[in-house]
């Protein structure tokens, strides 16, 4: 082998070391380092998106702050009326007394005792002492004062569709929204609450004698059969979005906790009076929390605590999906369903939207 060849190929690789390693061009190392520092900073920025739970938490925090501010803005405590609160000019008004009884459109001069819930339906109006309430207002009497909460979800009228198979499915026509029941005003002209859709009583649990720890209730099971497993929910399963979380302390109380999704789907099978009820509780819910599905008939608002003409249709614990079959009875023509999430003490954590279906 001549001078240009090698018996050992590995030795040949030594040729690549023959002239040594050249130094990089001046400034190369510094330039690359600067580029790397920039890239490092960009990399840190790009890989720091808030994790899913962080985003939810951030959104919940924003929602809580906004609602807390709104609630604070609309809480009105007029001590001047604490001595005696009278309802007058009631039109389209439902008053729920502390004992759970309800009175529609009470006569002028109706006394409002502590713990009374007053709901003014759409188009209705009422006056409590010198405060006028417009449609959509929801107020309670607490500590002798008129307390309104901004975080009220509206009743969503259901659209009953009739698919080809004859079944009817109620779907929410609008997402829940917050209404402004009563503006803040302690002096000046008597404020009038803004008109809006009929609200449900969501200002918090009405303090009644029946309020207390939740007793688990077995869901209605179809006769002669076991409760079927929950079917997969369709893509259009109504999810009202994050439901305003309450601490269960009642209306006007500081809002705490995180947003919890409550979904509800009700479907009438054929011409029967059997209603398939499926509900879901979002993953943000605590495993100990109990979801209850309440059914009312007519224009009675479905809410917790259970009032007159209210029936507990089903219950579940923690996040997940559940279902039940409800049989409202042949006399029922219009029924309403709602999911309410309760904590271990029976306090309301969150409320879903009301779904209404027509039967028969």
């Amino acid at each position, binding site marked *: 082998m001549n*001078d240009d*060849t090698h018996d050992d190929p*590995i*030795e*040949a*690789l*030594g040729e*690549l070391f023959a002239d040594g390693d050249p130094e*990089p061009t001046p400034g190369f190392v510094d330039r690359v380092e600067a580029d790397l520092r920039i890239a490092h*900073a960009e990399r840190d920025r790009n890989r720091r998106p808030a994790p899913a739970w962080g985003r939810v938490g951030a959104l919940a925090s924003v929602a809580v702050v906004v609602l807390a501010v709104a609630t604070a803005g609309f809480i009105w405590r007029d001590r001047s009326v604490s001595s005696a609160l009278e309802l007058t000019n009631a039109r389209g008004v439902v008053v729920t007394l502390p004992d759970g009884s309800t009175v529609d459109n009470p006569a002028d001069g109706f006394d409002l005792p502590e713990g009374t819930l007053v709901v003014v339906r759409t188009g209705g109006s009422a006056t409590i002492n010198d405060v006028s309430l417009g449609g959509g207002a929801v107020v309670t009497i607490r500590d002798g004062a008129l307390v309104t909460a901004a975080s009220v979800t509206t009743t969503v009228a259901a659209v009953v569709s009739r698919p080809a198979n004859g079944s009817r499915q109620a779907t929410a026509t609008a997402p829940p929204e917050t209404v402004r029941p009563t503006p803040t005003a302690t002096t000046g002209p008597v404020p009038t609450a803004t008109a809006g859709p009929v609200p449900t009583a969501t200002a918090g649990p009405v303090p009644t004698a029946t309020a207390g720890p939740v007793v688990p209730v077995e869901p209605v099971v179809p006769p002669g059969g076991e409760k079927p497993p929950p079917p997969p929910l369709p893509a259009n399963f109504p999810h009202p979005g994050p439901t305003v979380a309450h601490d269960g302390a009642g209306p006007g109380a500081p809002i705490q906790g995180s947003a919890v999704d409550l979904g509800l789907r009700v479907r009438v099978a054929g011409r029967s009076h059997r209603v398939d009820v499926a509900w879901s509780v979002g993953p943000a819910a605590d495993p100990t929390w109990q979801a209850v599905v309440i059914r009312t008939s007519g224009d009675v608002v479905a809410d917790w605590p259970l009032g007159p003409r209210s029936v507990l249709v089903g219950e579940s614990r923690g996040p997940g999906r559940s279902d039940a079959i409800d049989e409202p009875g042949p006399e029922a023509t219009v029924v309403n369903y709602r999911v309410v999430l309760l904590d271990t003490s029976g306090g309301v954590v969150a409320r879903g939207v009301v779904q209404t279906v027509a039967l028969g």
Partner: protein
Amino acid sequence: MTDAAVFPLVEPSRYEPVPFDERELVERARHDADAFAELYRRHVGAIHGFVYRRTGSREVAEDLTSATFEKALAGIDRFRWTPGGIAPWLFRIATNLVTDHHRRRGRRSGDRARRAVDRLHDRVSFDTDDAIESVLDFDRAALVRVALDRLNPRYQRVLSLRYLAGLEHDEAARAMGVNRSLMSVLTHRATKALGRELQRVQEERP
């Protein structure tokens, strides 16, 4: 060719020992730009020299060195510490980039280098022994690169990591992602293949 140019390769050794604090530096470099810059400073010379030996081009060496550390930054969260430190991982990135570089250019790169050597032979006047030696050294290095570039990419990586980066057998195996036994087999086959290519390149010389 002098023996001095050959012996370092017969018994390859680490280009430098792993600094005792490198593991901690690597951990910090995942989120600390200063730490990553320190790592870069420690290894940029070795990586640059390695790439230059493989490519014979200062310009390409700088491009690929820069790319090596950019890739290292992008992937440092996935780096798992091994006893050999971070160097084998960096050399693996670099040798992959070199292989890709040659693959992109195709075998024409080797042919181009050979033509460049031929042109150099034609132009240089051999006035002095030093000049002749210089040209011959360049010639030999270029021919070795031609032969090396003609190997399949895996063999290129084996020989580069083992003999041009100076990694120990185990480190090179880790950098290749193979076990010791397979590394031995690959090294043996790559060496044989390099020998055949060197012979072929010699025969192709004008």
